[in-house]
């Protein structure tokens, strides 16, 4: 039937041609990994290795964290054919609320965090109400939110200006690292727990991929040729291994990275494995058909905007924690970074298409650009232009490859 079921191919010629074919059939899927890889190599060369240093990679991950979290939520919003422009300033505002909660109301951090997350959900629900119940276009509804939260940030920071946060637990979110396994004193320059987690990650990945492949073969579905499959596993393991090694060589995994990983894991699970996820993509693919299939489109709208609000709150707190303070400018342009990350990561404006993991890669691409250009000392004005060009290139790539492969 299809030629992609070939699992033989020990000759080097067929190996190379297999790789070429798999790549060209799946450009859409692998494109952004390749782009990320290319960007990293370019910056490593132009910065003479500084970009790839342990310290900078840790920095990069922490910088990308708050946008990555937003991009995950934005992916789902765009998947159901909506947009949310209010997320940036909502995040900034809720970051300030968290700061006020701790400094002025003297609430403990373990009350403040859930409280702010719930406030985020409520804010998202308001937009969902306008969009789903009253039929207002989400662009307009969320633009109103954008203005309102911008004003709200100014109001709450008016009296004091920047609000300094002194809570160490809270600040660890953006600056701290996971602890070392107690009692392990050997090999002091390496963070053992990080290393252990990385190894567990690689083992789980390989295990999962092999299980999936077996399953697919059992049902005669197309799978990658064996050699390409192994290459893919090696590539991904090396990538995770390298990042783990770099992180372990500094201070280990940061709490920000942990938060992002948990968010990605949860959302990836929801979108790929659950009924809810399937319903979200169905609404994006064809809302009328979804409604007639018994899916409550309004309910999905509430859930998706609610989750977006919650992630905005999380994003705002990550940012405030990183700066150890809430500022008047927090939230500026975040929504655009998140939207750009989602598009670079392969979501489609037509709805129904887009993966959470893709958007994270998109966020890493955008943040690597900023970080790398900063290291190179390129001025902010050119940075904007380069990021714009990369966004345009990503969307052109998306359109050009839309009808390729499956």
């Amino acid at each position, binding site marked *: 039937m*299809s030629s992609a079921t070939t699992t033989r191919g020990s000759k080097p010629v067929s190996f190379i041609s297999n790789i070429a074919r798999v790549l060209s059939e799946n450009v859409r899927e692998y494109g952004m990994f390749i782009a990320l890889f290319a960007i990293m190599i370019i910056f490593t060369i132009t910065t003479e290795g500084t970009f790839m240093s342990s310290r900078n990679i840790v920095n990069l991950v922490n910088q990308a964290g708050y946008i990555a979290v937003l991009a995950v939520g934005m992916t789902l919003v765009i998947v159901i054919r909506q947009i949310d422009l209010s997320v940036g300033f909502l995040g900034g505002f809720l970051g300030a609320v968290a700061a006020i909660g701790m400094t002025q109301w003297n609430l403990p951090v373990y009350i403040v965090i859930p409280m702010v997350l719930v406030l985020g959900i409520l804010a998202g629900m308001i937009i969902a109400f306008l969009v789903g119940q009253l039929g207002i276009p989400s662009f307009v509804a969320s633009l109103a939110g954008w203005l309102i939260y911008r004003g709200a940030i100014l109001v709450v920071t008016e009296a004091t200006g920047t609000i300094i946060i002194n809570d160490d637990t809270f600040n660890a979110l953006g600056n701290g690292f996971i602890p070392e396994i107690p009692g392990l004193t050997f090999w002091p320059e390496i963070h053992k727990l990080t290393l252990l987690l990385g190894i567990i990650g690689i083992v789980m990945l390989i295990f999962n991929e092999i299980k999936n492949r077996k399953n697919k073969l059992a049902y005669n579905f197309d799978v990658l040729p064996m050699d390409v499959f192994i290459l893919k596993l090696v590539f991904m393991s090396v990538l995770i291994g390298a990042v783990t090694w770099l992180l372990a060589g500094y201070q280990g995994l940061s709490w920000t990275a942990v938060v992002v990983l948990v968010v990605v894991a949860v959302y990836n699970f929801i979108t790929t494995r659950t009924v809810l996820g399937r319903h979200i993509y169905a609404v994006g693919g064809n809302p009328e058909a979804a409604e007639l299939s018994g899916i409550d489109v309004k309910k999905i709208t509430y859930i998706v905007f609610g989750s977006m609000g919650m992630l905005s709150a999380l994003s705002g707190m990550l940012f405030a924690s990183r700066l150890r303070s809430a500022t008047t400018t927090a939230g500026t342009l975040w929504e655009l970074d998140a939207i750009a990350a989602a598009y670079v990561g392969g979501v489609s404006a037509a709805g129904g298409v887009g993966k959470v993991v893709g958007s994270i890669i998109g966020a890493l691409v955008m943040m690597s650009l900023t970080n790398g250009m900063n290291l190179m000392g390129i001025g902010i004005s050119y940075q904007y232009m380069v990021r714009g060009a990369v966004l345009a290139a990503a969307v052109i790539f998306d359109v050009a490859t839309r009808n390729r492969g499956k």
Partner: protein
Amino acid sequence: MGETSFPKLVSPNPQESAHVEGTMAEPLLEMRNITKTFPGVKALSDVSFEVNKGEIHCLVGENGAGKSTLMKVLSGVYPHGEYTGKIFIEGVEQTFHSIRDSEKAGIAIIYQELALVPEMTVYENIFLTNEIRNGPLIDWNETVKRASEVMKRVGLDVNPAAKIKTLGVGKQQLVEIAKALSRDVKILILDEPTSALNEVDSENLLNLLRDLKANGVTCILISHKLVEVIGIADKVTVLRDGKTISTLNAHAGEVKENVIIKHMVGREIDNIYPKREHIVSDEIMFEVRNWNAYNPALGRKILKDINFHVKKGEIVGISGLMGSGRTELALSIFGNPDKYRVDGELYIKGKKQRFHHPNQAIGAGVAYVTEDRKGDGLILIQDVKQNITIANLRALSKRGVIDFNSEIQAAEQYKQSLNIKTPTIEQKVMNLSGGNQQKVSLGKWLFVKPDILILDEPTRGIDVGAKFEIYTIMNSLVQQGMSIIMISSELPEILGMSDRIYVVSSGSITGEMPVEEATQEKIMNLATN
């Protein structure tokens, strides 16, 4: 046939017809050894196809035979280089790289899904992408004048300034044709133009094609309605599995229904409505009483005092012209997604029910296969498997997590029992042919395991072979005790499949009869009064 009766309409270009007679001998279009493959599918293999000037050439074949693909190759949708083989027009080889190129060469294609802009006026649509300019600006006076001329030519009697969305499908179809004629078309391709039209509109359209032919326009017509093919074709080319099987010449008496079917399907089908024993129990499964609906968007009442019922194991046919309110009736019952104001009573197995959302109707054992499978039936960008299971994921999941293995098994089961032609169940539905899409749609609702199945135009755009299969499936479903409500505008289908028939006309039921007492004339009379 109509080709000798000269049209009453004045041709704006009288030389055209003279020109035709002079060059009759040379084929106008020749497609030679066309092969087109998609990943996993060879849609066309070595197809050759020849059309002479001034003829109506019908292209028939089973779903997925490659008819639409062949026409997409011809019209530049699949550009030169994406297929192998050659295309000649008037002996000159053509290499189209886009639809624009083929338009320049005089080819116009009208897809089954109309490509008009609903919010624009008739005249704007006719000249869209072909605007009449006066310097940099559009010359609106000339546009309206020229639009009126072509509208007259196609017999479209509406205000040129009317918005497309206010017109019925039949009239929209005419706008499409007017649009094609406005740019000097040599070959007009129509892909299943009558599948969405009622009998009257279909007949009008076919007459128009005869008129155009008399004016020298060459037509390629794709259709699954063999009756109309036999009525209008000069030649018929049959495709099967991506290969040309035969080209039949009507003037040599070769165009006969049984011959076409045999070439299409590869075997003989004597009765396309398979027999079943009519064992209908007395148990009333479904009943609607004093059902009224008001559509606030249109500002009028769409359903008036409807009463009907369905027994266990019965197929009830609901006949009526398009636009008579049949689909609205089904929607108002099925959870009312369009938010009509509905009153009346609904009983399922004797229990009074009221549905506020389709999911409640599904929960009560009702399924509705929509009329418009692309618009509100399927999620085209998702695969066959996901479409089949979307309405009943609950059955495949534990605590909200889908069990992929059972999902695959369910989808495979329907792929096999409905004989869905697709390389794998992971194929995106948009890549399937129309008939196979319809089967996916049916599979999706059978997987809900309903007691009452509402089918809205279940065989629209489906080939004879697949029709036969779907009818056979319907028979086996009622024999297992399911009740079926079949909405259809095809009278032979209503007469061939129903146990009992209701006729709907402008939102009311105008007649009810057992199938033994029904005739085409009787139903038509009730449907048009």
